[in-house]
Every structure is written in C-alpha cells, then in structure tokens.
C-alpha cells in the first residue's frame, strides 16, 4: 500500500509537466436563469388581438401585424395575394404614394406591407406618427390601376431575376415537384399569371382577408402598455371585422419512388442539389421538438452533413437540412451547392447521411451537443424582444399549451436517442423523395442517373414544366453536306448570298483594356479589307486581293503566305461558305455536342495544308454557334474559340452581330454597329 502510494507520488511529481501542455476548456459557471418575459395582451372589440412587450434597451418601437389566413390557391392569377400586400403601401384615400413615401422616410421609419400582414419600425419619439401612418395604410388603402401596373412590371422583373438565380430556381421547382401545381405551396408564378391579375382581384382579397378578427398585432420596444392601449384603440379601433373565408388546404401525396430531376443551367460552375420529401409535422406536436433536435444533428450548423461534405471532403461551402413544422403540410429537405465535377459524389454522401440518420440512434455526446445547440439558439433568440411577442402569438395561433415556451428547454433536454431515430424514420423518406439538381446537365445527367429508382431522369424548365431533353445522337442519314446545306439555308439561302456583291461591316471591339473600331469590306470572293482603329489611329490593316495579301501594323509590314490568304478568305468572306470545294476544303461530320445548352453538329473543315476548323451548327436553327480553330504546334494543339450570336437579317442574309473571342479567361466582345450591302465599293479599296 505504501509502495503504491509512493509510486503515485512519483508519478504525481512528473505528471504536471506532461499535463501542462494539454489544457481542457474551462467549465461553465452556474447556469443563468432564462427569463422568457411576458407579453401583455388584450383584444379590441373588432377581434384584433394585441401583444405588447416592453423593452427599454434602445429607443425604438416596432409594430407587426400577422394575419392568420389559410394559404389559398390563386390559379391562373397566381401572385395576387403578394401584390395585394405590396399595393397596400402605394396610397391611401388621403395620401398618394409619393406623400406616403415621404412621410415614412421623414421620420426615419420603415413600413413594409405584405400579403400576410405588415411590419413597421421607428424611433420611440415618432411613435404616434408611426401609428397614424400604419393605420392609414392598413385601413384606408386606395388601390390604383397605375400603381398596380407599376408593381406588375416590377414583379415581372423580379421573376426574371429569380429565374437567373440557381438557388431560387431550385426552391421554386422543388416546391412544384413536391406539392404539385394545384396546391398553394406548389403553384407556379409565371409572367402570364402576373399579367392576369386585375385591380378587382386585389380589392376582393383585401376586402375578404384583411380583417381585424384574424389579426395578431405585436407592439414591441421602448413603450408602456398604457400608452399603447390608447394608440391602438384610436388607430385600429375603427377597423371593421368581417367573415373571413376559410380554405381547405389539400394534403400533399408522398413522392412516387426516388426520382431524379434536373433543371439545366448550361455552363454553370456549381450545381445546386437538394433532397426533399413530404413531411407532415404540426407545430406544437409531440414530434416537433425531437424533430428539431434530429435536424440539428443531421443538417444544423455543425452537423453530420457539414462535417462530411465540407470539413472532410471540401465539396461545398455549406450544406443544411430543414424540417419546419407547418399547420397544413410540410417538407423535409437537405440542400447544398457543390462544384459541378463532384455533384454525384455529393449526392451519394448526402443520401448516405440520411440513411445513417434513420438507421441508428445518435451517440450520447452527439445528442447532448445538439440539445445544447437548440437550447442555446432558443436562449439567444430572446435577445430580440420580437421573439417574446412571437412566442405569445404562436401560442394563441396554434393553440399550444400555455406553458409551451416556458417548458421548451426542459423538453429539449428530455429528448432521447430513441426519439431522434423515430422522428428520422418518420420524416425522412428516401424511397419517396426527389433529388433535384440545378446545374450543367451536359455534365451531371449521366452521373446522377444511378440515383433514380427507374433510371429515367426528368428534366424541368425554370417554371417547373417538364421538358424534353434534345438527343445528342446524330440523326440517321445526316451528312456533312446536309449540315452545310442547313447552315446555308439558315443564313438566307444560296440565292440571297450570291446576290451580295460587296459588304461593309463596322464593329466595335470591347476588351477590358480598350475599345477598338473595326471596318471590314469584302467584294466578291477574293477581295477583303480589314482595318482596326483605336480612336482615330489605325493600329492594324489587312488587305487581300486575289491570291495576294498584306498585313500592316506599327511593327510589321509583310506579305501573307498563300495559306494565310486562303484562311483569311474562309474566315472573313461571307460567301466563302458556298465555295468550299473550290478552296480545296474537305468537310467531315464529327458528331454532336451541346453548346450553351443547344445541341449542335460538329462540322470539321480541313484546309489543303491540314489545318482544321470546327463549326458548331445549331441542330434546330441551323446557324453557327461557335467556331474553333485548331493549330497544331510542337507542344500539342492550340485552339481559338469564337462564339457567334445575335443574328440579324440584312438584305435577306443573316449576319451575326455579336462575336466573343475566347482568349484565356477573358472574352473579347465584338459588336456589329452597321452592315451595308452592295454600296458599290470600288476595287481601289483593295489595292496592295
């Protein structure tokens, strides 16, 4: 015994040195009392429920209104609920929009209205004015056609912007896929539905649904209940109650199988990918808190998904999952943005984590961490006095037990590993789910097919409409000659092209460094003049006449070789395409490729000297989308790519008005300013 004691002592003496290197985190102090605070509430005679939370930390006040209306099917006028909300803020019976804007800004306030209510904030010293303006907007709106038209234009622009944003596209299409187009959560907003909205729709929605008896009004900040009571009575007392129609929100059916859907975004550097399924989780239900904890383990800020996809594999900047309770119907989803090349690997890891979540109970430490996170975020949310008001409103709105929020932390702490597994199994359903990718379909489609239950991918446009994917198989019987013929026809046909005797094209070349002016003149098939100017200084000139050619610039003045003359003619002369055989150029159909999302034929043209150029001819329009010149050098092939677009018809011939030369990372843009045909250019212009 003594011996052991001594050993321990000896060890003890040597231990501190070893332990000193490894510190452990300091322990927490005694847990602080979390006092949720109380909202004082009272009702007006018209049924409006008011919640007041006093908080004197800073001298501001906010007024928020929540209208407890059911989501509604808006059909071929989708968008009118939101427009009604926005239009409220564009004029009252006594104030034009301009007056309203000015008065709100003058007191440094914000007042925003939306389909389901409004929010207003200002400094405490402007409170009576804020009440006056808020009440005027809400109770006395004057809906005007002129303002509706403006808002419709803005909505159309916003919709156009949304369609360019891959995250918004993902969200819009996901909801349509999950809930269907005939469900309030899945309805599609389109240009057409916005156009269809009339002033009557707006007026009706306002009359029916903006009523005090469905309203919850929160007044929060540097106020006392007594003064609020007076103001509320004065400004919201006259609001008339009404019979608000109730909606029957249909239940959403589970997804049929595991389905992969793609929205093509040609050339995208990243794919936005999601996994989603229908989940019926009600606010305040027994599953709500365990589901929040489970979701935190799986896809919260420091979760399994984050650890796997970001910290372990560096596929993404962030990956999150969501499972929020909803009165009617809800969804579970996991969402991330990853670089195109790892899209399928990321989907595989994501699904793996979903199955893992369902398959076993979390470890004790993992669960404890998630519980701390959920509790901590609850406690931190109390820093905002609005939270306290919202808790009171939620309690009334969703008929939660009176002590629901008071017991929240206790109930989070009581979540068991078994409960986590149980809610994972119930609300994450990988065999009835969509995997949706918004990205470069050319690259990701083959790689994602294996995740689809039947291997058949579905393609959607940004409006959630199913679309066909153009095939990349060369149609039977298609030949190089036929592709060339299509191209010539698309340009306007042989006859129209042959009618061109001379053509003068003036263009602007824009690069990050400078803007240049280019003049190109062609006559017949063998006379070309091209001049490049910076301001009024000519920096380069190329002239071709018959078999001879010359290039002039500040540092050189030389004759072109026969090969160079032939190349320049093929490249620059409009009608050279009609005479490929005469130039000794061989043509060959290599196959198809997608260019910026369009299926294009690859038509290879080989010069007598072996130099190759590939034309990418759009399989639908027949026009040239791209040209790639291939130069064989000692160290491999060098290529130069030019994209063609903005074809406009001049004298019956289509001429591209926009060219991008891809050199390195930067694109050099050429925009055609003017095209003049058959203005009888004299031969002297081409003198060498």
């Amino acid at each position, binding site marked *: 015994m003594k011996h052991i004691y001594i050993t321990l002592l000896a060890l003890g003496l040597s231990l501190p040195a070893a332990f000193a290197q490894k*510190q452990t*985190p*300091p322990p*927490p*102090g005694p847990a602080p009392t*979390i006092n949720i605070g109380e909202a004082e509430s009272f009702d007006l005679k018209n049924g409006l429920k008011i919640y007041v939370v006093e908080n004197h*930390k*800073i*001298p*501001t006040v906010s007024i928020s209104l929540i209208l407890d209306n059911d989501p509604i099917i808006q059909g071929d006028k989708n968008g009118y609920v939101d427009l009604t909300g926005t239009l409220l803020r564009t004029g009252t019976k006594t104030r034009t*929009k301009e007056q309203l*804007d000015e008065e*709100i*800004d*003058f*007191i*440094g*306030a*914000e007042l925003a209205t939306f389909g389901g209510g409004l929010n207003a904030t200002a*400094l*405490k010293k*402007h409170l009576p004015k804020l009440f006056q303006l808020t009440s005027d907007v809400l109770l006395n709106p004057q809906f005007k056609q002129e303002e509706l038209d*403006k808002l419709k*234009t*803005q909505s159309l*622009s*916003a919709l*156009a*912007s949304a369609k*360019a*944003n*891959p995250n918004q596209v993902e969200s819009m299409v996901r909801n349509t896929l999950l809930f269907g187009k005939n469900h309030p959560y899945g309805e599609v907003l389109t240009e057409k539905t916005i156009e269809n909205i009339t002033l009557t729709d707006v007026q009706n929605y306002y009359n029916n649904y903006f009523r005090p008896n469905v309203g919850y009004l929160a007044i929060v900040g*540097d106020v006392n209940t007594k003064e609020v009571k007076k103001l509320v009575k004065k400004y919201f007392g006259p609001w008339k109650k009404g019979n608000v129609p109730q909606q029957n929100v249909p239940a959403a059916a589970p997804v049929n199988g595991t389905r992969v859907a793609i929205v093509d975004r040609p*050339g995208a*550097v*990243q794919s936005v990918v999601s996994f989603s399924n229908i989940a019926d989780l009600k606010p305040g239900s027994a599953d709500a808190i365990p589901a929040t904890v489970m979701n935190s383990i799986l896809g919260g*800020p*420091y979760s399994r998904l984050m*650890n796997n996809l970001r*910290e372990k594999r*560096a*596929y*993404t*900047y962030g990956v999150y999952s969501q499972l929020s309770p909803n009165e009617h119907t809800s969804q579970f989803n996991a969402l991330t943005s990853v*670089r195109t090349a790892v899209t399928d690997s990321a989907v595989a890891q994501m699904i793996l984590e979903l199955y893992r979540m369902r398959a076993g109970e979390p470890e004790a430490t993992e669960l404890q*961490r*998630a519980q*701390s996170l959920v509790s*901590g*975020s609850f*406690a931190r949310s109390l*820093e*905002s006095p609005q939270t306290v008001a919202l808790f009171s409103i939620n309690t009334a709105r969703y008929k939660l037990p009176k002590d629901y929020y008071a017991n929240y932390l206790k109930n989070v702490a009581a979540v068991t590993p078994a409960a986590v597994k149980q809610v994972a199994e119930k609300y994450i359903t990988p065999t009835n789910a969509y995997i949706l990718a918004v990205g470069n379909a050319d690259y990701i489609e083959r790689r994602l097919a294996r995740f689809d239950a039947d291997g058949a991918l579905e393609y959607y446009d940004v409006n959630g409409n199913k679309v066909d994917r153009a095939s990349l198989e060369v149609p039977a019987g298609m030949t190089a000659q036929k592709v060339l013929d299509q191209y010539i026809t698309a340009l306007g046909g042989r006859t129209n092209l042959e009618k061109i005797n001379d053509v003068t094209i003036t263009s602007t070349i824009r690069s*990050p460094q400078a803007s240049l002016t280019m003049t190109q003149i062609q006559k017949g098939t063998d006379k070309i003049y091209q001049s490049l100017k910076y301001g009024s200084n000519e920096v380069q000139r190329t002239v071709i006449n018959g078999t001879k050619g010359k290039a002039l610039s500040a540092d050189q003045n030389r004759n072109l070789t026969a090969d160079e003359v032939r190349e320049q003619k093929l490249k620059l002369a409009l009608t050279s395409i009609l005479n490929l055989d005469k130039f000794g150029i061989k043509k060959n159909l290599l196959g198809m490729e997608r260019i*910026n999302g369009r299926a294009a034929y690859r038509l290879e043209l080989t010069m007598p000297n072996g130099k190759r150029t590939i034309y990418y001819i759009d399989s639908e329009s027949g026009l040239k989308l791209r040209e790639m010149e291939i130069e064989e050098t000692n160290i491999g092939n060098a290529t130069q790519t030019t*994209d063609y*677009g903005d074809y406009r018809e001049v004298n019956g011939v289509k001429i591209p008005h*926009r060219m*991008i030369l891809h050199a390195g990372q930067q*694109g050099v843009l050429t925009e055609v300013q003017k095209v003049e045909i058959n203005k009888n250019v004299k031969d002297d212009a081409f003198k060498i």
Partner: protein
Amino acid sequence: MKKLFITLFLLCGGLLGQAQSNKLTFTEYDLDNGLHVILHQDKSTPIVAVSVMYHVGSKNEQPDRTGFAHFFEHLMFSGTENIAPGQFANLVQQAGGEHNANTTQDRTFYYEVLPSNQLALGLWLEAERMRSAKIDKAAIDIQRGVVKEEKKQRIDNQPYGTIQEKAFANAFTAHPYRWVPIGSDQYIDQATLEEFIDFYKTYYVPNNAVLSISGDIDINQTRQLIQKYFGPITRGTRQINRPNVQEPQQTAEKREIVFDEVQLPAVVQAYHIPKQNSPDAYALSMLTALLTGGESARLTKALVDQQQIAAYVGAIPMQLEDPGLFLMFAVANLGKEPEALEQAVDAEIERVKKEPLTEREFQKLRNQVETGLVQQYTTNLGVAEQLANFYMFYNDTNLVNTELQKYLNVKKEDITRVANQYLTKENRVVLHYLPRANQR
C-alpha cells in the same frame, strides 16, 4: 387643453431622461502584450458576445497571394495545441453558442455568442486561436477546397456576384484594394506552409488585435479571466505590412462590359471616395441616403417609381481604411436597355449636384441617420463589433456615443459639395452587366 400640455411636457421629460440613460458605457485598457480590451455590460439577456478583431485584411496581402487573409479566417477554425481538429465548433455548440467570422479589405473579425455562464470558454477559445492555432498541411488542404466552393457559391454562381471584384479591379491600379478579400484560387494553391505560418506570426498577435466583449458580464471578474487567458501570450515582433500606397488620381472614365448569368442588365457606377475617417465621410453617407435611402429617395423615386426604368437601385459608400469606392447599382426593368438606364442614373446625379436639398429633405436625412445608428446597437454582437471598429480605425471608441453628432454637424451644402467633388465622370468606373444570352 392645459392637461394635454402637461402630458406632452412630461413625455418630453421622459424622452430626455431616456436619451441620457441610453449612453453606452464601456471600459477599455491594454494588456502588457499590447492587446486592447473593451468591455460593455448589458444585463438584459443572459448571453455574452466575445469578439476579436485583427487588424489584417486583404490589403495586407502580396499581389501574388491574394485571398490569404480570408483563407486564414477559415484556417483559424481548424484547431489549436489544445483543441483537436474539428473540435472548435463542437465546443461552441456544446455550450449552446454560435460562432463565425468574416474578412474585409482591412480587418478580420471573429466572434462567439454564448450563454453568459460560458464567458470563460469564449475567452479561452479566442486566446487559444491567438496563441497556438494549428497550421498544418491537412487543415490547409481541406480549407483550400472549401474556400474555392465559397467563391463559386457566393460570387461565380450568383447573378451580379462579381460586382465588387470588377469595380475594385478597374478602379485601383496600384493600391491593394485592386483585389477583393476572396482573392484568386491559384495563389492559395501556390502558398507554402512556411508562408502560412509566417502570416500567422506576423498578424495574429495581441498587439494587432482588439478583444471586445458585450453582454451579461461582471467587469472585474472578466478582467481577471482576460488576464489569465490572454496575459501570457507573447507580443508579436515581426514587421507588419501596412501598405502605404497612394492610388494615383484617376483621370478618365473606365468602362467594362461583363457577361453574366443574369436576366436583367445592370449598370454599376463606382466613384473614388476618401478614406473612412476623413471629414467628408459623413456627408457622403448622407448623400447615399439622399439617393437611395427609402422609397422617397431621389434615385429610387425617379428610376423605380416614376420612370420605371429600374427594377432596383442601391448605393453603398464602401468607406475603408484607405480611400474606397462609392458603389451605385441599378438593375434594369424588364425590356429596358442599360444605356438608357445609365443616362437616367446620370441625370439624377446631375440633379443632386445642381439642385440644393430642401430643408425638409435635409431633416429627413438627419432622422434616417439617427434611426440607422440606434439600430446598430440592438444586439450584443453589434455593440461589440462597433466598439472594436471605432477603436481600431478611428482611435476613438467613444464614437458609439458621439457619432450622431458628427452627422448632425454636416451642413446641407456639404452634401451638394461632396456630390460635385466625387461623383464626376473621370473619377468613376462604369460596368454594364449583360445577360450571357446576348453573347450567343
């Protein structure tokens, strides 16, 4: 009538008392190693925000190592001598806290918001990060990938995501503001382990940092904890690169066309403005409000509401430690051309230069500024950040209480004057964002 009068009087008295009690009190001092400490007590919610601001941002980088400061921000979560890789986040999460960081051209800011009984943990974590961050190949390799994805997600794959990058690249030729914090992928790939360690030992030192804390704390006890955790960290001795580059005066307008995955064209104008602590900074902020602060603002009213040529307009004075840029951004409404949009923007700018503000317009700006300033102090994190910011860049922490007066000192004429002085053609960069579809 008399009664009403008295009530009003009482209300006013209450307001005055209120205004006084809203003065933000703080304690500040230096540790022996040079760490500057700022403490603010707020007992209204049992939480605390612990933050460290390092005086290093992208402008301290070498031209062939852009993105370094931001990359470091990521690396600083990897672990330390006493914190195993990946455990940093776990410790915060276990304590029920949240944490994050961000990097600008001038500084890098780290924070934890925790229950107030976890103050010691927050201090220990930040002290660990300052004393012994783990900088090794494994951590670097992972964050290389993550940062590249961040760039793709936040910049390359976002409509108009490259605005800042393009505006600064065009506007600056000599000053390191010519690149933005996200930098270029390839430089991080080229950097060696020694360079990373050197950067850490140069910039992540107590004498280059401000520790700012706001929340439910006891000041004396907090001072003791700070001494315990940060006191033993040694002062940095390496030479800190503070660029002293005078950007040559721009003499002619610069323009670039950017093709992007957008549906609506956009016009961006970026004007050179003086540094953030110059006297004109306040007038420039008010000019911003005059142009785009609220629905009644000049640009918003004219372009969005009346002419309906723009779907959105916005302006931000990017006031930085060295002279920065005044960025104006207008997105065309559907079917409107960028050229016409630019003309409309220019017309309003001309109007600002010529037409004096009305008295009421001026009062509006003052009211808006007052509300805006008050709202910066709604959260403990907001308070902690502003305290650190004012100390680091203005050497006047008390600006949290006096900044409003600086704005109130601006005269109506000053706003017109700065518009004339800075919003000139030769002083600007113009970018047109066009739909990539136009390229075809």
